[in-house]
């Protein structure tokens, strides 16, 4: 083993700084999954009949479905009866909260997580820009900040359970219109049991005056989280949205099955960024979140645009393919991804770009980093319909291997039915060379910093896509996720 490798191996302990458990009194649904549990969740949310029907119909279908097995992921069979599908901190008041109502203990937790819930504060960034936050704790939203200020320009930003009551016409119109409740095993499960997530509506012509973000925290043991997010950008609207997620360090695996739907109308744009930092399991592969996520954007309008940026550093298992249906003429889909798998993590992630409209274009930049004994797969589909004249796709998929115990895989599906479309796909695999590392060392840069520097360089194109407030955080996270990986 080289000296630098030895130096790095000393740092093998996992530095997951969000692994603490908060002692918060919670209320649970009965363990397991059946119609009664679904009725329980619906009743807790005080839902109208149509919402309960939607859930029950999804549940019936889910019972007939089989878990997908095509991903390069290996894990023991999940016992869907061995988990709580609803867990909420006990609260003195019902219904939507304002900051004043929030339990001070809860505020302290978010402080510890580095998430500002006071409207005058900002995230640790260079610029004094404001960010509205919806804080989701297990199955409920604790608080949503800046709601009033946003409503002045007509922007709706609230928990989805609130939107069901306050904006039923919008929810009925758009919920399940991008990811139908029949879509896939996990999406159907989510349709039956989803508990919380954010709802965003940006009215025509409005540019959302601040970044919106949702922060998901799983706290309770033996519970799953079923996030449901719906964002609609009406004609000419723009919004930049960011989600973050963390969970305590536990020995058991916990399930997170989310559905995110984006609807983009004429000339509108949604920029959706994710920094996924669920507990990844320890260095022996024990514990960690199973993250099965369906994210899809429907670019319905002409000149509409969706940009997905994801930094995936957490979770024991990641199964996630944020996609774009490019229906509107000239619509644009982008996917920028960094997926880091260290220790025993497994990631199978990528995107789907479905070109239906004329002159639609898409761009995929994927950077996969495998270290330890991890397996990291990029899986992507680019499909060009016969009607999509002038469609254009560019895909660049790079893998970086650190150590010889891990795997890096690339599985792209590229289909074109159109001679007027141009597709380009490139993929490479490389490692951090000893020469590169030595060059940095000889300039006085210590090993762990050199690895972080080189990996951040490798990821640069993607990091640049993140809103500035989060880019700095993400860069640190990249370095942190790989500590102890060179050996």
């Amino acid at each position, binding site marked *: 083993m080289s000296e630098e490798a030895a130096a790095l191996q000393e740092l093998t302990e996992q530095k997951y700084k969000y692994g603490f458990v908060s002692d918060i009194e919670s209320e649970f649904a009965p363990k397991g999954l059946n119609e009664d549990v679904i009725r329980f969740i619906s009743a807790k949310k005080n839902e109208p009949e149509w919402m309960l029907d939607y859930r029950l119909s999804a549940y019936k279908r889910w019972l007939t479905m089989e878990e997908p097995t*095509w991903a390069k992921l290996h894990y023991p069979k999940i016992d869907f009866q061995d988990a709580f599908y609803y867990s909420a901190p006990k609260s003195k008041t019902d219904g939507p909260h304002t900051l004043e109502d929030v339990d001070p203990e809860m505020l302290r937790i978010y402080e510890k997580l580095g998430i500002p819930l006071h409207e005058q504060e900002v995230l640790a960034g260079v610029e004094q820009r404001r960010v509205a936050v919806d804080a989701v704790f297990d199955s409920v939203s604790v608080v949503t900040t800046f709601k009033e200020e946003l409503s002045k320009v007509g922007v709706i930003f609230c928990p989805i359970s609130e939107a069901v009551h306050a904006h039923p016409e919008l929810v009925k119109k758009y919920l399940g219109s991008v990811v139908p409740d029949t879509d896939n095993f996990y999406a159907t499960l989510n349709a039956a049991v989803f508990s919380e997530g954010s709802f965003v509506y940006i009215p025509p012509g409005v540019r959302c005056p601040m970044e919106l973000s949702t922060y998901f925290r799983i706290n309770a043991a033996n519970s799953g989280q079923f996030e449901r997010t719906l964002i609609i950008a009406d004609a000419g609207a723009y919004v930049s949205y960011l989600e973050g997620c963390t969970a305590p360090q536990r020995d058991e695996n916990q399930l997170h099955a989310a559905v995110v739907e984006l609807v983009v109308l004429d000339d509108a744009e949604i920029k959706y960024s994710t920094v996924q930092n669920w507990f990844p399991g320890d260095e022996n592969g024990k514990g960690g979140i199973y993250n099965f996520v369906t994210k899809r954007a429907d670019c319905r309008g002409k000149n509409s645009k969706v940009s997905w940026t994801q930094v995936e550093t957490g979770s024991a298992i990641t199964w996630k393919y944020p996609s774009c249906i490019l229906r509107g003429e000239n619509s644009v889909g982008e996917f920028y991804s960094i997926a880091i798998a260290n220790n025993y993590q497994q990631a199978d992630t990528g995107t789907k770009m479905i070109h239906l409209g004329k002159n639609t274009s898409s761009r995929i930049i994927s950077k996969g980093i495998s270290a330890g004994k991890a397996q990291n797969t990029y899986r992507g589909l680019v499909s*060009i319909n*016969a009607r999509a004249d002038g469609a254009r796709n560019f895909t660049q998929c790079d*893998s970086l*291997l*650190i*150590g*010889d*115990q*891990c*795997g*890096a*895989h*690339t*599985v*792209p*599906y*590229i*289909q*074109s*039915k*159109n*001679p*007027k*479309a*141009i*597709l*380009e*796909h*490139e*993929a*490479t*695999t*490389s*490692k951090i060379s000893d020469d590169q590392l030595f060059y940095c060392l000889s300039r006085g840069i210590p090993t762990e910093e050199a690895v972080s520097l080189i990996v951040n360089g490798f990821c640069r194109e993607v990091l640049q896509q993140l809103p500035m407030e989060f880019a700095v955080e993400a860069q640190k996270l990249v370095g942190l996720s790989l500590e102890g990986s060179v050996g």
Partner: protein
Amino acid sequence: MTGSLSDTLLATMEQRRGAIAPWLGELQGQAQELFRREGLPSRRIEAWRYSDLARALREDRVADATPVSAPELPGAALAAFVNGALDDKASSYGKVGAVNLRTALGEKNSPLASIIGKVYPQAGHPIVNLNTALLEEGLALRVPAGKKLDLPLHLRFLWTGAASDGRHLRLLIELEEGAEATIYETHDGAPSFATIVTEFSLAKGSRLTHIRQESLAAGARQAAVTLGEIAEQATYHAFYFTQGAHFARHEALIKLAGEGAHAELDGATMVADSRHADNTTVMEHAAPNATSNQVFRAVLAGSARGVYQGCVKVAQAAQKTDARQLSRALLLSHKAEIVTKPELEIFADDVKCSHGATAGELDANALFFLRARGIPEAQARALLIEAFFGEALDKIDNEVLRESVSLSVHNWLSTHAGEASHVE
């Protein structure tokens, strides 16, 4: 199972077991059992997602009125298969020391008998199983150490008559240390369902050149599999030409088993009308310092469908692997379709692996340039497409073979390049 056809095949398997050589009965029995369980491959299996054989065999076939003929290669050693039977009178394969399969496999301990069923892990492969269970005819070539064959071996598969039955043929090729050989396969006519499985084993420092020229008629249904293992410093250079058929699929499953082994695969696919052509490769790097390079080019007209699935696997031990893969497609019609799935599966860190894929139409600037110099559009298109394949054709060393393949490219273009100009 796909009903009556599978039943018929199973019944035939029952008759064929041990027919070619009694000692093979056991291997055939195992293959038959696997076939009974799995049936004919359909789109439900990931590897057959874009080429549904079970369905193709249920569909009606297009009748092709064009009279069938097969190319002659002057000076070559010839193995003439007519409707799947080896025509010894017309053949001259003895010139290079080849023997028919029955002779080669006569005794369990005969030299080539050790290869059959052994090259590349093949147990799970539906076509190989079917072929093994139905084995009836074939050819075997063994080139002794250090010997360089100066004549190419021409394997001529010709299917005549409107309803020529399918046959299931096997080729065994073994090159001993330092040996060299060139195999030229031609496929013409319209078998209702043929499978051809080739197993080759290349010993240290040997070199096999393999040219496949598949010019099947529109109604043909054929699934071919080439299985190969390449030892240290040995080289396999292949050129696979296909113009598709009702169902035409060729798989190359290759294992680079020794240090410094090299595989060079060039593909040229030219499909029109409603033809289907599938090139599937698995390049398995199992040893250090091995290299592989694959370039598959395709031109698609009419409502044809082209498939390229290429998987490069790099085992943990295969450090310093250099594996490249490129797929390029030109679409000449709004109804044609290309499906590309270039896969990388990598378990070693010190490797150079890359793949690229492009799809589009002919370069408009180049086309304009040629037309501005007075070349009519159809001709300009043909010229550009020929140039598109030129680089791969140039790599064929044997001049006579290169001419023969070039002629196929040229003939296709003279019929179909004009179609391109209708694209709007």
